[in-house]
C-alpha cells in the first residue's frame, strides 16, 4: 500500500466552533511525516478522528486501508498511539502499564522492552502517580516502541523529555523508520522535525496550509543573500522576485524567491563578486510565516 493515512476535506465541529475545516493529510507508507501547526490548529482532533475516538462530520478518512470509525478495533492491532497529555492509572506501576498496553496490542518483545527501559532510564517499579510528565511519556513511548505494529501515531511525544532523552527518542524513531514503520509525528520542536521527517504538513485553523518535503516547502519561499561586489548592478532593483533590498556602498543584502535566485546570482557574478553567503530559509521561518495570525503580520514576514 502506498499511503498509510489519506485524509481529504475533513470537517469536525464542536458546537459552534469549527475545529477542522477541510483538512487534508497524506502519509505514505514507510515515511516519517511531520504534523505541524500552532496550538489549537486541529492536530489532536485529527489524530483522535484517525483513532476512531471522534466521529468526523464530513470528509474522507482512510487509515491503513480501513475506516477508522468502523474498523477501529482491527486497525488498532496495527498501530500504537502516544498521547500528548499522558494520563496513567495512578496506582499501577510503569512496568505494569507497559505490559498491559503491550498485551492489548497483541504482545510485546521482552528484549526490546528491557532495552528501551534502559535507554530511556525509566524505573518501572514506581507507581505512575509518582512519575513526572516526562516519565509518564516514557512509559507510553516504550509501550508503543516495543510493540510490533506498522504505524506509530505520536502526539507531541517529546514535550516533557529532557534533551538527552529527546536524542534517544530521535535515535529510536530513526530505527523504526529503518525497520519500515510509518510514523505520524505531531510536534512543535522544529529541529526534531527537520532531522526526522521525510515530509511535513502544516495546519492552521483546521486547514492544511502546506504539505510536502522540506525541500519542496523551501522551494516555495525565499533565500537570504548577502554579497560584496565591485559595483552593485542597478538591474537588481528591478528584478522580479527580489525583496528587502538593502545596499550599503558595495555590500548588498536581499531575499529572493527560489525561481529568481539563478538570475540574481548571475547579475552579482557579472558585477565582480568578492564574497557571498546564501542562506536557505530555516524551518523556523517557514513556520513563523504560517503560524502568524492575520494577513498583516503575515505580509510583513513575506515582504
Amino acid at each position, binding site marked *: 500500500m502506498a499511503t498509510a493515512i489519506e485524509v481529504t476535506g475533513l470537517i469536525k465541529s464542536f458546537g459552534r466552533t469549527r475545529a477542522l475545516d477541510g483538512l487534508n493529510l497524506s502519509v505514505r507508507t514507510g515515511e516519517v511525516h511531520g504534523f505541524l501547526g500552532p496550538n489549537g490548529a486541529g492536530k489532536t482532533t485529527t489524530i483522535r478522528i484517525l483513532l476512531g*475516538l471522534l*466521529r468526523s462530520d464530513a470528509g474522507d478518512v482512510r487509515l491503513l486501508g480501513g475506516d477508522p470509525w468502523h474498523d477501529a478495533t482491527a486497525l488498532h492491532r496495527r498501530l500504537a498511539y502516544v498521547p500528548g497529555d499522558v494520563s*496513567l492509572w495512578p496506582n499501577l*506501576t510503569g*512496568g*505494569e502499564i507497559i*505490559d498491559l498496553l503491550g*498485551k492489548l496490542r497483541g504482545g510485546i518483545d521482552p528484549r526490546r522492552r528491557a532495552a528501551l527501559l534502559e535507554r530511556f532510564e525509566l524505573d*518501572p517499579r514506581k*507507581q505512575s502517580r509518582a512519575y513526572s510528565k516526562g516519565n509518564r511519556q516514557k512509559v507510553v513511548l516504550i509501550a508503543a516502541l516495543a510493540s510490533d505494529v506498522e504505524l506509530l501515531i505520536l502526539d507531541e511525544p517529546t514535550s516533557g523529555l529532557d534533551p538527552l532523552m529527546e536524542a534517544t527518542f530521535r535515535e529510536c524513531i530513526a530505527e523504526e523508520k529503518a525497520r519500515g514503520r510509518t510514523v505520524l509525528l505531531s510536534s512543535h520542536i522544529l529541529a526534531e522535525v527537520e532531522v526526522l521527517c521525510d515530509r511535513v504538513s502544516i495546519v492552521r485553523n483546521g486547514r492544511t496550509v502546506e504539505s510536502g518535503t522540506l525541500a519542496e516547502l523551501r522551494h516555495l519561499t525565499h533565500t537570504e543573500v548577502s554579497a560584496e561586489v565591485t559595483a552593485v548592478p542597478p538591474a537588481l532593483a528591478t528584478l522580479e522576485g527580489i525583496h528587502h533590498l538593502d545596499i550599503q556602498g558595495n555590500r548588498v543584502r536581499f531575499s529572493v524567491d527560489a525561481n529568481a535566485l539563478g538570475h540574481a546570482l548571475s547579475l552579482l557574478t557579472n558585477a565582480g563578486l568578492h564574497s557571498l553567503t546564501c542562506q536557505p530559509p530555516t524551518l523556523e521561518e517557514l513556520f513563523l510565516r504560517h503560524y502568524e495570525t492575520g494577513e498583516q503580520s503575515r505580509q510583513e514576514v513575506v515582504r
Partner: protein
Amino acid sequence: MKGLEGTATLTRLALRRERVTIPVWIVLLVALVVGVAVNYKRIFPTELIRENFVAEMSKNLALIAFSGHIVSANLGALVVFKIGDSVYTLLALMVLLTVFRYTRTEEESGRQDLLSAGVVGRYAPLTASLIVACGASLLTGLLCVLGLLGLGIDPVGSLAFGVALAGSGLVFAALAALVAQLSENTRTAITIGAIALVASYLIRFAADAIGQPWLEWLSPNGWCHLLAPFGNEQWGVAGLMLVATIVVEAFAYLLVARRDLGSGLLAPRPGPAGSTSLRSPFALAWRLQRGPLLGWVIAYSVIGAVCGAAAGSMQEFIRSSSFGMTFLIHYSGSPNASSADIFLEMIVITLGMVSVFYSAFATLQLRSEEVAGHAELLLSTPVGRIRWIASHLLFTLGGTVVVLAAGGFFMGLVRWLSSGDVAAFPRVFTGTLLHAPAAWVLIGATLLLFGIVPRLAVAMTWVVVVYVQLIGEVLGPIVLGPTYRYSVINALQPFHWVPRITSGGAFTATPLLMLTGLSILLIIAGLLTFQRRNIGS
C-alpha cells in the same frame, strides 16, 4: 501571623469553588431534620402516644442499637432518634471530603505548588480548609436549631442537638486534617477517613447492642449521644468535643510543619516491575474495581452478621394499638410476620437500597476513566468500545450480586445459628439477593446516561440514586405519608417491585423478570449510544 499568610485568599478561593456543593449539602441536612420533625409532629401529637412509643421501642435493643437510646418522650428526642445518626454521619462525611479537597487533593494535583509559590504560609491551606469545613458545620447546626425552634420544639434540647451536630463536624474536620498528612494520595486519605467514620458508628452501635454504655466514650458518634439532646443534657461533652478538636488539629499542624509539600508520612513502596496478569481489559477492570468491591463485601458481611444477631432481641409487638408496629409495618411482606422477621426485612431492604451506591460508584468508574484520558489510551489499542464497557460492567453487575450475597449470607447464617430456625437462612439470603435486579436497573440507567449525556452522567446518576433513596424508604413516609408505599411515585423506583419474602411475602418471578429485562434494555441502549458518540466529550 507567620505561616498563615494568604489564608484569607485561599479561604475565598475555596468558598468560590464550593458555592454549589456545600450549600446543597447543608440544605439537604437541614431539610432531613426539619422534615422528620414536621412528620413526627403529625404522627405523635400527644405526650401519651410518644411515651407508649418510647416504652415499646426501648425494649428492643436491636432497634436501639441503630439509632441510640431514646432519651425522653419529648418530640425532639424522637426526631433525634430517627434522624440524628444519619445527619451526624452525613455532616462528618461532607467535612472529611471538604478538608481533603483543599489539602491533599491540591498537593497531589500539583496546584498547591502553584499557590504556595505565592505569598502563602505553610499553614494557610490547612487553615483555609478548616475554616470552610468548620464554618459549614456550625452553620448546619445553627440552621437545624432555628428549624426546630420554628416548630416550637424544646429550645434547650434543640440547642444541644445543634451543638452535637456541629461538634460532630468539628471533630471530623480535625480528624481529616490529621489524616490528610498521612498519605500522598487523596484516595488513601478518603479510605482512612471513611474507616474512621464507620468505626465511630459501629463502636456506638456495639455499645448499645451489648449494653456497655462506657464504650460510647471511645467514639465521636458516641459523644453526640452522650450529650443527650432533649434528655438530661451533658454540656461537658461539648467541651470534650472542642478539646478533642483542638488537640487533633494541633497534631496536624505539627505534622504540616515537618513534612515536604506533596509528601506523606506513609512512604510509598516500589511496586512490581512488570505484570503477566494484566493481559486484558477485564484484568485491568478487576485491578481497578477490586479494592472498593472488597471494602463493600466486608462492610456488608459485618453489618449482616450484626443485624442477624440483633434480630434475636426483638420483642413481639402487641399487634393492635402498637406504635412500634406502625413504625415497622410498612416493611413487612405479610400481615402475620413476626417482629423479628419484620426487623430482618427492614435490614434486607436497607442493604438492597444502599447497594445502589456501590453500583453507581462502580459504573461511573467508566466516566472517570474517560475523563482522565485512560479510556483514550485503551481504545487506541485493539480493545473495542463494547469490550471496554463489558470489562467494567461485569464487575458492576456481578459485584452488586456479590455484595448483596455477602450481606444476606452472613445475616441469614447468624440468624439461623442464633434462632435454630434453618428456614431463616434461605429466606434472608434469597430475600437479599432478589434486590439485585432492581440495582441492575440503576446500573442500566447509569450506562444509558453515560452514553447519551456523558457530561451530565455523574450528576444525573446521583440525582437518580437520591430519588430512589428519598422516595424509597427514608423520605417516602415523610413526603408522602403512611400510604407512600402505594403511590405512583414510589412505584417508579425499582425496589418497590422486589418481593419481600424474608417477612413472609409471596415469591413472584414476574416483577424480577421485568426488572431484569428493563436493565438489559437500558444496558443495550447505553451500549448503542456509547458506540455512536465521541470519546472524551
